[in-house]
């Protein structure tokens, strides 16, 4: 697993209060990890801080699964 994945996983576990083993690449934030709309906003804020990124709304809306976040961040590093 990549370093990005591990950092993202840590953030997701903390923000959403889920178990580390639930954070799989194909897991959906809303359907599998129980995130509501404010959780997603907070998650985006935390990711922006951790990776020193600005994630615009139009990109944030497209991110639904854990794997998509990893891909998004890796493409911009």
């Amino acid at each position, binding site marked *: 697993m990549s370093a990005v994945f591990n950092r993202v996983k840590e953030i997701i576990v903390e923000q959403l209060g889920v178990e580390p083993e639930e954070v799989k690449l194909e897991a959906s934030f809303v359907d599998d990890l129980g995130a*509501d709309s*404010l959780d997603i906003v*907070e998650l985006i*804020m935390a990711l922006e801080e951790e990776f020193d990124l600005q994630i615009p709304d139009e990109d944030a809306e497209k991110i639904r699964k854990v794997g998509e976040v990893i891909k998004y961040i890796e493409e911009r590093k």
Partner: protein
Amino acid sequence: MELEGRVAIVTGSSRGIGRAIAIELSRRGAAIAVNYAGNAAAAQETAAVITAAGGRALAVRADVADQEQVEAMMKQILNEYGRLDILVNNAGITRDNLLPRLRESDWDAVLNVNLKGAYNCAKAVMRPMLKARWGRIINISSVVGLTGNAGQANYAAAKAGLIGFTKSLARELGSRSITVNAVAPGYIMTDMTDGLAEETKSKMLAGVPLNRFGKPEEIASAVAFLAGEGAGYITGQVIVVDGGMTM
């Protein structure tokens, strides 16, 4: 003390109701950021009153209508105090006129400071409050926002707008233990009301069951109540402090 360890920013607290709020929150233990737009001397005076009584105060300049200035100010407060728990959106201006004579610049100025200013400040404190899973946002509205007032279409629209803003934020942030409420003052003795003619004042008092104007301290105590732990189950409300004028 009830607010020990908390940090509060009160916008427009160099004078008037804002100053009274800053002093009262400090008296209950909070460290205070005294925001001002132009009058640095008055803001320093508010800060001096607080520090003389043993509290912590920092005067911070920002025009609340300007998002960049607001963000820089919140950063400055976080650097100084390390946290931000309580936001009181108090900064307000008036540009009164009857609608046919109400200039677009008067409309914009009042909406920008009184309503957009609250949006700018609330947005800028989201990060620390969401992270802390605790927060208090208290918007200073006005009875005029509930009843309307001839000659104050801009001011009343902004103050009514704050109520809708308050209720929406209360719904958005409730799950994070951030409460959002409004306080709507009636006629309060400040520089803003000092200029009124005696005749106008006595006419105004005729509609006030308590038969006197309010004191800034009486707004401050309502705000301090909402800021405290004891008001943790109150959100999305408008507390009217007007001597019974509107009921």
